[in-house]
């Protein structure tokens, strides 16, 4: 286990190093002088520019600049937004809980619906039920979620008037951010209307974002379940006369869920990608829409910092999943 752990940690460090190089290079690859971008004006005093260059360390050799960049990033300093002049780290931390709330709700939906669907499809393999479930799953998997989100708005918000179109909560409620998670904060406010409002704002974005993971999980659960159901120990359990519920629910499901858990972890990365689209459409004030605004405003420190943070989180989640999988399944530990 120690060797496995060391190997994994080594790979993670290399990947993290690569990501910092990428994020650092991003600013320098973008056409245009970073200092000029910051000023955004044409007739600046050259002396003033030189001052700013020195102050930012842009006049120093590239390798020193990179070292400084990593040093600051490790201390939580990701620079200043060109548009708002606020710290990029602070801005990220303000937007992050909204994305986590959305992503966790989406993943919950995906698991709670996807796993049972996959089990049902596996149990009734080859039946109409199986084909319809898998057909729906493949459609979900092929779904352009930016369009799916619009369709949901068209149906539930515009036509039926059931849910709001954008934001996290009705502006009538003034919720104090305690945890940053609107569902929890609105519960803490002890105003039942606030919680309902927060929930109705969350539901459509969560469905839109959860669709692709749901499809992936349903497909994965089905194939894992089919594999497990053909194992000897399942046949033994059946032969012992255990009830089908016990065989499937206890013996088969436990082992079938291991690959599913891995898939759930690996979906975290694509959730961030999907969040960019979902948040943009629903005006959800999370990391994704923050990044897109940053690009539209040519606010490169925001893009740079955001990418570094998202990549770091994805790396850490993948590492956790890897280690958990290794813990659950010893066979993985000894495979390099």
């Amino acid at each position, binding site marked *: 286990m120690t060797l496995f752990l060391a190997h994994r940690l080594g*790979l993670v460090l*290399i*990947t993290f190093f*690569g*990501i910092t190089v*990428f994020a650092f290079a*991003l600013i320098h*690859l*973008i*056409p245009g002088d970073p200092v000029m971008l910051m000023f955004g004006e044409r007739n600046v005093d050259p002396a003033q520019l030189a001052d700013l260059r020195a102050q930012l360390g842009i006049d120093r050799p590239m390798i020193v600049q990179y070292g400084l960049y990593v040093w600051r990033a490790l201390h939580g300093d990701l620079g200043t937004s060109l548009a708002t002049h606020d710290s990029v780290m602070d801005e990220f931390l303000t937007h992050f809980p909204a994305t986590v709330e959305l992503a966790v709700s989406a993943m919950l939906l995906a698991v709670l619906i996807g796993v049972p669907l996959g089990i049902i*499809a*596996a149990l009734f*393999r*080859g039946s109409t039920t*199986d*084909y319809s479930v*898998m057909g729906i799953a*493949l*459609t979900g*998997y*092929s*779904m*352009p979620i*930016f*369009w*799916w989100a*619009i*369709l949901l*708005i*068209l149906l539930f918000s*515009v036509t039926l008037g059931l849910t709001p179109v954008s934001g996290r909560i009705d502006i009538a409620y003034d919720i104090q951010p305690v945890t940053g998670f609107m569902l929890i904060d609105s519960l803490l406010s002890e105003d039942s209307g606030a919680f309902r409002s927060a929930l109705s704002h969350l539901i459509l974005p969560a469905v839109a974002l959860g669709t692709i993971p749901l499809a992936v999980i349903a*497909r994965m659960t*089905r*194939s894992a379940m*089919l594999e497990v159901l053909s194992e000897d120990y399942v046949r033994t359990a059946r032969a012992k006369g255990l009830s089908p519920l016990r065989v499937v629910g206890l013996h088969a499901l436990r082992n079938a869920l291991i690959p599913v858990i891995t898939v759930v972890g690996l979906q975290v*990365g*694509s*959730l*961030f*990608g*999907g969040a*960019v*689209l979902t948040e*943009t*459409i629903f005006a959800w004030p999370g990391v994704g829409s923050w*990044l*897109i605004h940053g*690009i*539209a405003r040519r606010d*490169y420190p925001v*893009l740079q910092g955001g*990418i570094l943070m*998202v*990549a770091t989180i*994805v*790396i850490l989640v*993948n590492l956790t999943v890897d280690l958990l999988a290794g813990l659950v399944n010893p066979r993985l530990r000894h495979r390099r």
Partner: protein
Amino acid sequence: MSASNLARAPDARFADLRRHFLASRGGTLGLGLVTLLILAAAFAPLLAPYGPYEQMRQAILHAPGGGFPLGTDDVGRDVLSRLLYGARLSLSIGAVVVSLSFVTGTLLGLVAGFAGGIVDALVMRLMDIMLALPTLLLAIAVVAVLGPGLANAMLAVSIVQLPGFVRLTRAAVQVELGKDYVAASRMAGARRARMMFLTVLPNCLAPLIVQASLGYSTAILDTAALGFLGLGAQPPTPEWGTMLADALQFVQSAWWVVTFPGLAILLTVLGFNLVGDGLRDALDPRLKVG
């Protein structure tokens, strides 16, 4: 692919593949969808009632019907005509993106697999780094560097797809390198380039073909997403994602301008995914999901 399969003549293998593929309902359905799409793209000038940029000022946001089967958009362009011409664009996007990443990815994978050691480690770590970023986010970052536009979006998406091809090729190469026929070819004095491209590569193609088919759908989806975010094809190009972004402000008043472009994307992506699934099942029954 099993050993007995390999021993048979190539056309017998192909017949086998075709039989297995056509036996899967999904694969056949997907092939049908893709064929329809190709026909629509090929005959777009004949099928489209109007030009993709032709503006009918007297029919702005005209509902479907009355000479406009799928309605018109906010400047009076026929939606059906734009979708048909957009099919040409989407098919080309998929073809270019997949070719780029297929060729580059296979090459990198072959080199990594054959060279081993430090070269292998370097290539694979680079792929790890690319995989650490969500694909759409990496594509967005690349477009931010290159500047928005269809060509840059396609380049970004093909970069994003690289790791899949590299990893698959390398894994397949490593399996093949341990086999007897490779040792025999090496002892017969085959040069490295010959070994790579003529001896080993053909036997690694099965998973790569599946990946290419699935990559085709991802390419169309991601490029449309970039177009939707304003980072891909720019208006008035009839690219489906860009059309959707243009139409977003009319969600409440004109459902047709947002419904049909998305439906076109969905059916196309679904078609290529079905073909990919069907091919995987036909090429490698062991991978068969059910």
